[in-house]
């Protein structure tokens, strides 16, 4: 499988706290990697550094051979880097459908000059964006919620909206930050099968998750992080079986 995301020597410290210490990591197209480790290991910081939300002190990030280092978050997203947030970060003032439309690729209506001068183009893009949003909603089982306010939707479905919104941009690499925290039942199974399908389509996926069963069932590979470093990498089973890692995880 070709390399999708390539991270080299990624480092970041906030004063005396090291959140990333020379992290090297590769994600391959079609593979699902689980990022595990105790709270404070630097998993979410890793996502923030890769997605361009936080600037690293050093290190490089490349997506499908294209160097993203130094690029702003919105440019990385346009080049195919998608992410979700542990705290959801949905847009509460927008309906579910409109939350998705903010993620739509090529949306000229969000340039003021284009909006005013090229109305026809904006109108066509709006229709195409809606079409795609409705497809993604259908795919994620959210079609019944399209015109609801996001705050009125059950929590599990809100998590799904976060993933669906990231899919609007047709990402090549998807970073999922605790997609399962607080989710059970139908939404759990939907997210699980959705992530599998996305990987089968050739997207590289990296999941931060504390739900070990989810990681074990889904991930091709596990990466164990501690204190901003990658300590071990291998099958999820082998990581769980490693006494040294479980001790670090539970802090005994």
């Amino acid at each position: 499988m070709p390399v999708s995301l390539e991270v080299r020597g990624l480092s970041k410290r906030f004063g005396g706290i090291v959140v990333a210490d020379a992290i090297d990591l590769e994600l391959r197209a079609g593979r699902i990697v689980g990022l595990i480790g105790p709270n404070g290991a630097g998993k979410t910081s890793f996502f923030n550094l890769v997605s361009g939300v936080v600037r690293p002190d050093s290190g490089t990030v490349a997506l499908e051979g294209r160097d993203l280092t130094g690029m702003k978050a919105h440019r990385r997203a346009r080049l195919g880097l998608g992410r979700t947030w542990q705290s959801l970060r949905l847009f509460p003032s927008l309906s579910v459908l409109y939350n998705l439309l903010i993620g739509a690729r090529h949306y000229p209506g969000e340039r003021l000059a284009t909006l005013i001068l090229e109305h026809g183009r904006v109108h066509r893009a709006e229709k195409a964006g809606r079409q795609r949003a409705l497809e993604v909603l259908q795919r994620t089982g959210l079609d019944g919620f399209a015109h609801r306010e996001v705050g009125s939707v059950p929590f599990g479905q809100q998590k799904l909206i976060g993933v669906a919104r990231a899919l609007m941009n047709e990402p090549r690499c998807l970073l999922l930050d605790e997609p399962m925290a607080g989710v059970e039942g139908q939404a759990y199974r939907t997210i699980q099968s959705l992530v599998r399908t996305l990987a089968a389509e050739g997207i590289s996926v990296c999941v931060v998750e504390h739900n070990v069963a989810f990681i074990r069932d889904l991930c091709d590979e596990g990466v164990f992080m501690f204190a901003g470093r990658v300590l071990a990498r291998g099958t999820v089973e082998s990581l769980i079986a490693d006494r040294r890692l479980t001790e670090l995880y539970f802090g005994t």
Partner: protein
Amino acid sequence: MEYLYTIAILMALNVILASSFNFVIGYGGLISIAHPVFYAIGAYGSALLARDGGVPVLLAIPAGALIALAASVLVALPSVRISGDYLLIGSIGVQLGILEAIKNVGWTGGAGGLTNIPALLRPGTDHGVYVALVVALAVLSVLLLHWITRSGYGRAMSAMRDDELAFAALGRNAVAMKVAIFALGCGLAGLAGGLYAHYFRFLAPAQFDILQSAALLTMVVVGGMRSTFGPILGAIVLEVLPQAITFLDLPAGLLGPMQGILFTGLVLVFMFIRPQGLIAAGSVWRGRALEEGHAGQS
């Protein structure tokens, strides 16, 4: 009649100022109080182009608006990267600094003011024509802003206000959007400035001071932030009330302070009793109806 015309023109100019200020702080979420300074830049720019540059007034007014727009981009580029309280502090600096510059350089007329500004209309023309022109431009400005806030652009503005990080991580450029919002809002303030200059034909820096910021903020807050008609109502109420006070036959020494007390008092009362303003905007973004099957699914 002259007096009524003056009131009508000031009202229409306040509608442009309050609506564009609402666009910047309400819809854009950019907490700037420097709006009067761009009103001043438009007014002075247009007046000087026409008076000293020999530019026809009809061209000088849009040129003044463009100068205000360009100046706002210069201010916005470094300052929209900062946000919230820091942007507010930066905008106070811009407001005070540029006004101080206008007061102290020679070619603006200094603190004494700029006089002999050419009028747009030929002498003898009915001033009702100017009223009609200013009202028409106020209506067009309001319609333009209304149209933008109800379009996909307005939807994106709403999302950016909700959560800038999530907005950026979806491939949207929040900085570019903020600069564009600021530029359009300040450009409209500059247009109002030019329209003011060539009717009243006299400009003084004191008209554009920080009290004017307070007045505009009052119009937006009392009228209703993030609604289309709120700032219009606010602009009309805030133009009529001080005029009404002048009829109360109070001593001249009391009039000025009374207006200040009125503005501040109104904001305080509204903050406590009706923070959403006279016309409340909903918390959920409502756009133009383009939905097929909306009714069936909601």
